[in-house]
């Protein structure tokens, strides 16, 4: 018994000594470098702990996390990796919502504890939609093997497959899209032997082929009408081209593209000669929150011999009358080609005031263009500005607003130039002010160092997708062909 007691005491002593407060022997006015960069960012009050690695040399590391004068947790370890307990982090978020928090880091170097300047972050009072849906795949070209659409619980690290293609013969799955950030109305495409589009509405899954027989190109990029009945599709002839030299590996380009509206109730498509033309390529449809306007990108049609780096897209919008199923009043919103630029992915903020898009040198597939940056247009006055707060030297592209409009998520390749990772940023809908972007937290902060799948099409949703079995079962069905 004595030995056992001694052991218990040793363990308690060890644990106590591990987290015992180490008073600083000296101070460093600089903040330490941490990875991922969680400094001066605004976190939602429901985000998972942003674990990080301290990128400073040392023998031991002490991290205190708290707000105001209060230290809420202390982590001491010989490893520079800081793993924050989920429960304590969420407790802290509750207390510190609307306030700043600090990461106070001390490092033991040559028997001296050096306390660095605090790293400060803010906690917003506005939560972010708790689920992020994305496709995980290799950032490859034509061949594929394993890929899937996954949902990540942003309040924890839990990731669940919605449709992992190993469940259905390694076919391609893409373009997941939700109406009103809700998994109650959603769609995704399957490409391969059992190809088709899965549409989930009114608690049932239908497999359709939105391409009528006499149409040349299949339905590609979707956009749900806010009321959940109509889907705008661009029908694209997408081709890949590979750069002979330089660091840009591939150009994904349309050789043709038009926009149609698919009615999920009647399995019928309709369009208008303003959107379905031989003279232009129309792509990336996106609805305004009231469903009365459809935004899209448009470029001159591709003709044989057209140099791909001369194709530039402008931003357009067209009015939509749902009752009469009528598209009218085409209008150019942003003449990007006039300044030698091209745009993609228009997205209107939930309050209808701002429009975010990606701007880059040419083409429409911005995710392969390192110069791609996010831009914001104030729809009240048409002013356009680069979102410098979040843009980087590498790709900053595919973006989605949260349902509240207080957050947006976007794909950025800033870490290395090849893999897209989801970054979040806060947004003030009154002032248009944008917070510094932060990387999706992972349990292992070194996760991104060896993870070789890219996060494709990040979409925020208000609740989890729970019908994944139903979706996978529907893949085996025969697709109902749309009519026009």
């Amino acid at each position, binding site marked *: 018994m004595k030995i056992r007691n001694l052991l218990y005491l040793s363990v308690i002593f060890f644990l106590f000594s591990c987290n015992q407060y180490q008073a600083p022997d000296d101070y460093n006015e600089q903040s330490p470098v941490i990875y991922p960069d969680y400094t001066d960012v605004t976190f939602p009050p429901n985000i998972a702990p942003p674990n990080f690695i301290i990128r400073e040399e040392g023998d031991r590391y002490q991290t205190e996390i708290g707000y105001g004068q209060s230290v809420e947790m202390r982590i001491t370890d010989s490893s520079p990796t800081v793993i924050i307990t989920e429960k304590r982090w969420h407790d802290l978020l509750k207390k510190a919502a609307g306030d700043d928090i600090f990461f106070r880091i001390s490092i033991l170097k040559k028997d001296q504890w050096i306390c660095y300047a605090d790293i400060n972050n803010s906690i917003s009072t506005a939560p972010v939609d708790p689920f992020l849906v994305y496709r995980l795949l290799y950032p490859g*070209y034509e061949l594929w093997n394993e890929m899937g659409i996954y949902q990540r619980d942003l309040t924890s690290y839990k990731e669940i497959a919605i449709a992992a293609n190993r469940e259905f013969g390694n076919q391609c799955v893409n373009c997941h899209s939700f109406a009103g950030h809700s998994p109650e109305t959603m769609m995704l495409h399957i490409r391969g032997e059992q190809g088709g589009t899965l549409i989930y509405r009114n608690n049932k899954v239908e497999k359709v082929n939105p391409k009528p027989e006499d149409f040349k190109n299949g339905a590609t990029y979707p956009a749900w009408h806010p009321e959940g009945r109509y889907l705008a599709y661009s029908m694209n002839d997408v081709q890949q081209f590979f*750069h*002979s030299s330089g660091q840009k590996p591939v150009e994904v380009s349309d050789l043709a593209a038009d926009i149609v509206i698919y009615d999920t109730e009647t399995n019928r498509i309709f369009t208008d000669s303003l959107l379905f033309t031989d003279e232009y390529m129309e792509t990336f449809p996106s609805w305004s929150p009231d469903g009365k306007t459809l935004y899209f990108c448009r470029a001159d049609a591709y003709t044989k011999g057209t*140099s791909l780096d001369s194709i530039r897209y402008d931003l357009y919008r067209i009015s939509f009358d749902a009752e009469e199923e009528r598209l009218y009043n085409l209008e150019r919103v942003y003449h990007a080609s006039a300044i030698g630029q091209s745009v993609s992915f228009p997205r209107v903020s939930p309050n209808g005031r701002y429009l975010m898009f990606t701007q880059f040198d040419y083409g429409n597939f911005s995710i392969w263009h390192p110069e791609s940056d996010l831009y914001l247009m104030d729809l009240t006055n048409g002013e356009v500005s680069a979102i410098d707060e979040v843009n980087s030297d590498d790709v900053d592209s595919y973006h989605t607003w949260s349902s509240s409009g207080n957050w947006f998520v976007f794909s950025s390749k800033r870490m290395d130039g090849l893999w897209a990772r989801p970054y979040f940023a806060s947004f003030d809908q009154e002032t248009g002010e944008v917070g510094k972007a932060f990387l999706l937290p992972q349990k292992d902060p070194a996760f991104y160092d*060896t993870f*070789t799948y890219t996060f494709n099409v990040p979409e925020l949703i208000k609740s989890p997708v729970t019908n994944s079995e139903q979706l996978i079962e529907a893949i085996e069905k025969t697709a109902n062909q749309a009519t026009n």
Partner: protein
Amino acid sequence: MRYLRFILFAVLSLFYFFMYQGVLSHVIFYHEQHQLFLFSSNYFQQTLQTEGVPGYITNFVIQFFYIHQLGSAILALILGSVYLLLNQVIRTITGRDDLLQVAVIPSLFLFFYTMPVDNSLKLPVAVFVILLLLNILILISKRLFKRKKYIHIPPLLNNRLSVAVTVVLLFSYAGYGYYHFMKSYNVSEHIMVKAEQHARSGNWEKVLEYTGNYLGRGRSNQLISYFHNLALYHKGELPYRLFDHPQALGVESLYFPWNSDSRESEYGYMLYEKLGYINEAHRWEFEAMVVWGETAPHLMNLARYNLVNGRPLVAQRFINILKQSLFYRDEATKMEEGSDEIMPSLPHNSLKNVVDSPARFANVLNIGPELQHLLEKDPTNQMAFEYLMSQLLLSNHVERFAKSLRYIRNFSYTALPATYEEALYIYQLGVSSEEFAEIGFTVSDETKRRFARYYELVQANETDKLNSEFGSSYWYYLNYISPYGNKVITDDKKMQ
């Protein structure tokens, strides 16, 4: 009889070992190159999820195939142990020696099962693990219940007869095994994998040995021809020996046009890397990684290509993965540190400082324009030159060949290779003397004399003599082998 099982275990294990060291050596190499075991929790979780425990254990075992002898020994011992462990189970259950030596059968079956490289090693490893666990269970139950046997089988034969039956059966197994092996051994697979192995290590002499052996039997295979021509180039013999074997595949004996074929995706990178066409090498290698997984050859190459293409952060991701392996860790670390040992071995990027305006995109179906582009950007790229010449000859493009011959002046050939002169003479015969003079080369009298002889044999329809005297000539290829017909293609009548 008492030690027979140990003797058989040793005999089987040694037999397997020597097979994996010899005629099945490609099996060890192939599996090692198609698996990469990582010491990381992410790998553990992911492998369990996708391949299960047997997959994880198999991958663990395969990593040791990096050392070829060790890999052969491990696989041989696993298969030998299948016999020993099963024999032990039979002995424990019956309380007697296995008179029929049936335990030999699964061991042999699993050995044969490992012969085609596409068969996973999961099965033999899983059988071995199950038998091992079964033996442990039996051992425990024996200790617990003190039972010597579970089924009573009375002695059927006396000792002499038992020995005779056992010996006869063992000879039968060996005889059938020999027959089955000879019937199912895939020599082409062996040659292809070995050629690839030697090509990767730059042992071009060996590549020629394997591919020459294959092509010398009058057979045709795109991969073999691809490696053969690569080896010819590296031995400085491509212009001289291009037609030594019938190039029945035409230009496709030089390269793989992009067909979105997952099997082909593994090989395309090699040609482009040697040409210094790094973007294409990278594309092929990335496609291969997507299909075949994150294995060492793909990760190493992707890291190398990104380093030479000025994308060190991308290279670092691949290096990070390799650093989690047992046998590639050191090499990855050296690459990360930019060690003097590794950096000189990085491939040359022929288009390093090229900025294309308007943007230029690779022709992934026809290598001709790509070779032309490489040569225009770097007229000293000898491989691009020889491959361009070969591509033009093999595609019957004699006119373009003659017009591109000027690039030869950038290199130190002592004389025009005979094949080139043969093609040039064809061109001369089809154009005016003024047009031919523009080319700036002459055809030797010897070549003209040889052509006269060739023509004479063609007229006389002396096919055997033609083959023996001119089988390696361009004339013979053009008239009798080319898959594009026996006519020269001029710029007025373009291919593709």
